[in-house]
């Protein structure tokens, strides 16, 4: 008996050691990362791939942002500013963009970055064999954009027609041609060991556990003050919070429920800032109930957003009234608000012919005012919102059913040609350009993101004008009109703008102004103070 136990124990130890060695593999000797020179970020999602033209998840993008540089980047005020390109010109009535590249940009392997790399990157995105979801960004009305070089420092973008959103799409991370031109981009080993030109160099990626970056001492905008960045993947939100509390990570998002607890943490500062996201209740406009604008308006009046947000977020979100985030430079605040008013809601429904039946549900021509709200399962905030709306709409005689669906199935339902749904709670995460053609243009139905079937000739025309107009003030007028029309028509009941809630260790300084671009926009200015390390 004793002997066997010893043997088992011995074998187990051997296996353990073997596994450990296999896992830790070969190490490269570089500057030691310590708590005093490294920022540890908690990430909620697994990183899938580290190639900016292939990745589509926010965790991967967050990491890529520090490894790669683009032609342009976004500053803390959400303005497009130079990055690799030191300046640019718009010519030929907005059909030609000429970027002048810096002369002092080097890849992490020491090669020089030139306009040929830039052209290679954009051409790769357009290559149909490359599985890039970004390809559509560079195709205008079915015509691919042309990319040309004029010497190693001049890069030209030639558009089939003026297209204002293009500038916001030029910030994508540039790939090194010399390492990739003869490889299959989809499966290249590069995608797990990337080499970029950004402020940090890739060091190590232990799959689904962490990614380690170290500073690029030759970064063209000046080397960062910190030596390294570690991303730790912690999928569970409670575990993330605990890791923050115990100082195992320095930066983490925090769930609204823990916001007050986080504010009491001694080792952290807590930030709340707006994002470019809005959440809404969207109606299937081909449904006979919702095709009548009066029903939508009545439901809008019956929506008590203050109560909704207090119950779900304890006030840590802003009520939404229109299809654009208030942080956007083209946000229009003067839109129809449909402030909570049950009397008006009831009056509109009465007038529209929806009569209260004996079962306290309104009906019209034998059809009951009854519909189903779809919600993606697991999104606690939206699940709660559905229940609260069900209760709020009951007060005006509407019967609401709730159906929770797994995300993939829900999307399938919205995208199918049959449009077999009544309404859905979902959200849009917008880019910094105000163009929302893909959401509202009638051509994007039934195949496209206009799955509710919104169709308004004026909005169609304005959306087309908005994308082809370059002048800022002119565009602002156009998008202001679009927001007014959509807010009036209420094809969605706009519910809320979520806030980003982030806690950052007190030892970290030099953060940028809180906003949708995050707190680490100017990563090269971020430093760790010596006196407050002991947490």
């Amino acid at each position, binding site marked *: 008996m004793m002997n066997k136990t010893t043997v088992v124990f011995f074998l187990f130890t051997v296996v353990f050691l073997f596994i450990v060695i296999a896992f830790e593999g070969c190490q490269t000797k570089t500057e030691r990362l310590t708590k005093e020179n490294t920022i540890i970020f908690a990430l909620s999602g697994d990183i899938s791939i580290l190639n900016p033209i292939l990745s589509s998840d926010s965790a991967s993008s967050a990491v890529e942002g520090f490894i790669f540089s683009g032609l342009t980047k976004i500053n803390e005020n959400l303005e497009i500013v130079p990055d690799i390109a030191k300046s640019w010109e718009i010519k030929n009535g907005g059909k030609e963009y000429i970027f002048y590249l810096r002369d002092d940009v080097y890849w992490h392997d020491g090669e020089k970055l030139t306009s040929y790399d830039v052209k290679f990157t954009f051409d790769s995105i357009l290559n149909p064999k490359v*599985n890039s979801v970004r390809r559509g960004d560079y195709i205008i009305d079915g015509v691919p954009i042309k990319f040309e070089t004029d010497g190693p420092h001049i890069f030209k973008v030639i558009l089939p027609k003026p297209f204002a959103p293009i500038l916001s799409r030029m910030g994508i991370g540039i790939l090194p041609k010399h390492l990739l031109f003869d490889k299959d981009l989809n499966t290249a080993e590069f995608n797990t060991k990337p080499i970029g030109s950004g402020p940090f160099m890739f060091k190590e990626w232990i799959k689904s556990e962490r990614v380690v970056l170290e500073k690029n001492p030759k970064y063209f905008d000046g080397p960062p003050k910190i030596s390294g960045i570690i991303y730790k993947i912690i999928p569970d939100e409670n575990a993330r919070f605990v890791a923050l509390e115990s100082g195992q990570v320095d930066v983490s998002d925090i769930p609204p429920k823990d916001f007050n607890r986080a504010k009491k943490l001694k080792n952290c500062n807590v930030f709340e800032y707006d994002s470019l996201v809005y959440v809404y209740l969207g109606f299937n406009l081909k449904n006979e109930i919702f095709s009548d604008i009066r029903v939508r308006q009545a439901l809008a009046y019956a929506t008590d957003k203050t109560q909704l947000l207090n119950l779900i977020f304890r006030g840590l979100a802003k009520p939404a009234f229109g299809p654009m985030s208030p942080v956007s430079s083209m946000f229009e605040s003067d839109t129809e608000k449909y402030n909570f008013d049950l009397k008006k809601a009831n009056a509109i429904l009465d007038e529209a012919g929806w009569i209260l039946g004996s079962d306290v549900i309104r009906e019209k021509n034998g059809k009951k005012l009854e519909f189903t709200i779809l919600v993606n399962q697991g999104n606690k905030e939206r699940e709660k919102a559905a229940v609260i709306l069900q209760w709020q709409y009951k007060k005006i005689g509407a019967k609401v059913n709730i159906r929770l669906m797994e995300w993939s199935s829900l999307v399938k339902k919205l995208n199918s040609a049959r449009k077999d749904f009544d309404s859905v709670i979902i959200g849009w995460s917008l880019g910094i350009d105000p163009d929302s053609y893909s959401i509202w243009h009638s051509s994007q139905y039934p195949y496209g993101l206009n799955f509710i079937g919104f169709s308004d000739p004026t909005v169609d025309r304005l959306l087309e004008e908005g994308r082809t107009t370059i002048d800022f003030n002119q565009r602002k007028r156009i998008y202001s009109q679009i927001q007014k029309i959509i807010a009036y028509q209420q094809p969605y009941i706009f519910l809320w703008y979520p806030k980003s809630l982030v806690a950052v260790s007190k030892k970290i300084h030099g953060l940028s102004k809180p906003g949708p671009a995050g707190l680490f926009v100017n990563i090269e200015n971020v430093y760790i103070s010596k006196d407050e390390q002991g947490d």
Partner: protein
Amino acid sequence: MLVKFLKKLAVLIPMVFGISLISFFIIHLAPGDPTALFVDPNIDPKELLRIKANWGLDKPIIIQFFYWLKNIIRGDFGIAYLYNRPVLELILERIPATLLLMGTAFIIILLISIFFGVYSAYKKDSFLDKIVSILSFIGMSLPSFWVGLMLILIFSVELNILPSSGFSNPLLSTSPIYLRIYDIFLHLILPVSTMVIVGFAGLTRYIRSTTIEVLKQNYIRTARAKGLPENIVLFKHALRNSLLPLITIVGMSLPDLFAGAFIIETIFGWPGMGRLGVSAVFSRNYPLIMGIVFISSVLILLGNAFADLLYLIADPRIRIDEND
């Protein structure tokens, strides 16, 4: 006997084929598709159709299945979507951490439950038996995520002596190997403890009841009547026989060692197979799901065959029956 075992293995091939065929269809017929993750106002739906075609998803499912089968026979599990890397590579890189977590927990559970199971059967209705019973029922009824969070709260937050998440401390990656092994050991304590707390109960109860049965047998009475010392009766005669059914349990647990534990991995940020598998299902990552299903089913079948073989070796009665 060897022939018999090889025959058993040969039967597995059509079974694996059947399992693969059925699961392939179920997975592909489930609503939704792998591009659902890309719903974003900035992504043109036409591009999603193009990418689906690149992945071969525009072909009929049966054709896709035969492509998949053809590749599997050549040992090619395909390229996983999103990661754009070979499925086998994704699975293999999760195996060390998964085996380490699951194996350690399994061995500890096994040792604890054999000890407590046999002991409380022997001292049935004693004070210790009752304590073990109460502890088992508590362990059984506690949800693992709660136990995990409580352990984190106590040992990581309040006492601050153990790390709460991950496999190793990233800041130690240049330290000497013994420090890193110690570090991994520290990271292992909380997840393994959680698994042991919620997992030991079932097996303990099981061993207790089989041992109670065995202790009632005539040969135990004979052994005692022969005047054998009590510890030989218990550990030689009783334990051996009461542990026979355990072979099945160990055989069945083989695939679990590979499959990982999703909830534990999520709470403790452990880079295991459970998370890979669950996220593959939610993102409809067909090649990855099929890879995991295929390997799991092969392991389940092998585990069962292995258990059968062990039975043949351990239990002479079965051998005799089959020779008749």
